[in-house]
């Protein structure tokens, strides 16, 4: 990542880390089970390289299912929750209601992961976010997720964290993108945080 001086990078990484930790704690309480989160990875990606960057982070060339969800306030961005083709089917018993379809479960779990992680991250920067409803992207491969020529940004800050639920065959890569002008707002929030230390 090259977004300025090392102190800034370290602070951003630390804030993301704290946010994700809080999200993991909240999710564990909600699901009443132990959630394993990887150390978040931050990367500044150019539009042309985004598919390769996602493929490297998710580390699969096979088919995946994905859910997207937008968030906005002073910063705007979008999150992708990427699963293997099994999706969230193994988690049906974790949500507290019967007769849940695969799609509804996928949307429910994705919304919870995105809301918890991006929300916790935003609170680290004292940002209030609102979220769009999640929507399922077409079944595809990782490199087919984003139609690169159609992307309306030049570069984006990408944060990735991997969720696993201990004792279950479930894994989800949560990728959060802050494109273009949102990077500046985010870095300004980091600077404000550093100035308060």
């Amino acid at each position, binding site marked *: 990542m090259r977004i300025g001086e090392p102190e800034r990078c370290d602070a951003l990484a630390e804030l993301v880390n704290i946010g994700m930790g809080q999200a993991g704690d909240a999710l564990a309480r909600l699901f009443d089970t132990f959630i394993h989160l990887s150390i978040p990875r931050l990367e500044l990606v150019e539009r042309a390289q985004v598919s390769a960057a996602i493929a490297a982070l998710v580390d699969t060339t096979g088919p995946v299912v994905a859910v997207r969800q937008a968030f906005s306030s002073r910063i705007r961005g979008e999150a992708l929750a990427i699963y293997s083709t099994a999706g969230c089917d193994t988690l049906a018993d974790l949500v507290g209601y019967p007769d849940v379809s695969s799609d509804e479960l996928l949307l429910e779990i994705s919304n*919870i992961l995105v809301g918890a992680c991006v929300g916790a991250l935003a609170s680290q920067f004292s940002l209030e976010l609102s979220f769009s409803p*999640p929507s399922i992207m077409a079944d595809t491969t990782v490199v087919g997720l984003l139609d690169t020529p159609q992307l309306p940004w030049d570069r984006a800050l990408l944060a990735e964290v991997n969720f696993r639920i201990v004792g279950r065959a479930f894994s989800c890569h949560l990728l959060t993108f802050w494109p273009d002008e949102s990077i500046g707002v985010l870095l300004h929030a980091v600077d404000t945080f550093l100035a308060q230390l």
Partner: protein
Amino acid sequence: MTLDRLNAGVFSVDRQLKIVHWNLFMATNSGRPADQVLGRELFACFPELPEPWLRWKLRSVFLLGTFAFSSWKQRPYLFKFPHNRPLTGGIDFMHQDIAFLPVTAEDGVDSVCVLVTDATDAALSQRALHDAHRRLEREMAERQRVEDELRLAHKLEAVGQLAAGIAHEINTPIQYVADSVSFLGEAFDDMRAIIERHREAPVNGAQRTAAADSAELSYLEHNVPAAVDRALKGLERVATLVRAMKEFGQPSVGGKSFADLNRAVTTTLTIASSAYKDVADIELELGDVLEVPCHVAELNQVFLQLIVNAADAVAEAHPAPARGTIRIRTWCNAEAVFVSVADNGTGIPEDIRSRVFDPFFTTKPVGRGTGQGLSIARSIVVDRHAGTLSFDTTVGHGSTFLVRLPR
């Protein structure tokens, strides 16, 4: 109040799930005014609500402080509200998108605001789109069925046109099988007579009888094996023809399966022999071609069409007793398998080259061609196999048609 003017339902519940806000939209559509529900527990007021589902949603928002959503696509409605189409109808209840928003205070989320949006129009549009999609799928399936029938009809027509020739092909070996078997019958009678004579001949006459029979036995010894051989070859030829007809006529059902194109070419050559044997010599150069996924019965039809066309072109360019040549080659590379059918016939005039694959275009006399052959051949190669069918031609020198099928 502003929220009362919204064309959407808005209500809030506190941590005990007691209703703390209830806007006019909710009151109007539920038939329960605010003063009847405020301060009362949500499920006590509306026992018909899906309680486990709604409790989970509210719990997640209280616990995580995040938004939650529900789409009409997964759950058509939360409340059984009347739809907004009292005149036009077409739907049972108002379809709803639901959003759950945390309302935070100093000590965390103290209530959840629930937004109920009327999504009936979107649901009806989507249903119409879905119905149109289904109709399109049905029409495509029907079109596919008609195309399949057309291909089959053309194939039967082609076989029908070859039927007289095929009957002749079968009749010729049957004739010499019959002759040979008849000869064998007579030979057996002769041998039985010789055996009888040897049993009954007097000792003093044995010398004369043995000399006469020796000549006859020598004749039979020479000709019986030849007759057996002719009969077996004739039967083998009939068996080959019947086998080829069976393979050629196999209906194309289901998906593609791996097939040997060299075998398909030789089978078709057997079937089509009456079309070319009097006018052309065949040069067959079969390469080391791997099996390819294909509808082989349909490809047989393509090869038959190309061979019959080549025979017609050769016959026109080389009137009897002269003969032309049809050269058939197969080969492959890493991406595709190729089959070419080349003739030294008339070639295709330049002004009709762009039309040879057009349906119903033909240069053959009435009764000889329907103009469907190359059109269907191209459809089989291109549409059914993602391949190509191309040609190279020189007037007065001949044409080469090339089938390319991806591996």
